[in-house]
């Protein structure tokens, strides 16, 4: 138990070491999640738009008819 406490104390530099790692984790995970969410949001927006508006092929058929 005390060896674990020694480990987490990082030789007295715990606040510097762990803050560095925590911040890196927050920024990288945040970037990954926001990227994925942004992509999913655009995917569903594009799907809605494509379902609503007839495609180019469909409309050109209409104008021909």
């Amino acid at each position, binding site marked *: 138990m005390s060896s674990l406490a020694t480990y987490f104390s990082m030789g007295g530099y715990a606040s*510097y070491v762990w803050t560095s790692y925590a*911040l890196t984790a927050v920024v990288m995970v945040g*970037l*990954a999640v926001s*990227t994925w969410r*942004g992509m999913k949001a*655009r*995917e569903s927006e*594009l799907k809605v*738009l494509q379902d609503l508006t007839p495609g180019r092929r469909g409309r050109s058929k209409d104008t021909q008819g």
Partner: protein
Amino acid sequence: MHRFANPARFLRLAAAIQPWTAAATVLLIGAGLYFGLIASPADYQQGQTVRIMYVHVPSAWLGMACYSTMAIASAMALIWKHPLADLIGKSAAPIGAAFTFLCLVTGSLWGKPMWGTWWAWDARLTSMLILFFLYLGYMALANAFDDPTRGAKASAVLALAGFVNVPVIKFSVDWWNTLHQPASVTKIGMPSIDPSMLLPLLLMGVGFTTFFVTVLLVRVRSEIMASKIRAIRLMQIHSTPGAVASGEVVG
């Protein structure tokens, strides 16, 4: 080269690569964390703070690698007008800005206990801060115009002009007296870093790179969809029901 400029081909390629780079990222960073935080020794001078190196140095590498990617994509966009190149540049910028930010903050957290200061206006630290501002400027410029192609052109010129900063960052520690120490890993001859510490550093470095590739692919995919959405919306404006009706009357 032009074969990959085709968005459809790119999307197929990205879909094939993405799961592998994502899995590699998890494995490499996992191993890097194990060796960096547990299975590596403390430094003879810096003690446990040396562990900050395993996130600080890869962040710095990626900050510069993202910028190089952005600059190359910008050159390709300006010269060959690849539609995909603009999207790659625009997608790389936020990732590079995030890594540069991490490099600056973790460097500060390392500098305080070791050097005795959070910040010093030496050539290395200042050029890295300039890199961060270049990213911010690029992102602001890319979104400053109503016409996205104009924004892309202006930001591409900025990315290329700012590229001179990258070699300045790299060699600042050799050209001028700096508080920051010179390079350890890319030193000519042997790296002046013990193998037990080089291993976590390289694992994290490669892991951060695969992370960058994965996130970049997703962002480019997202940008391709965004341009499709824009195209559909433009089409809708030009063919609103009223316009169609009047067109029919004229026809």
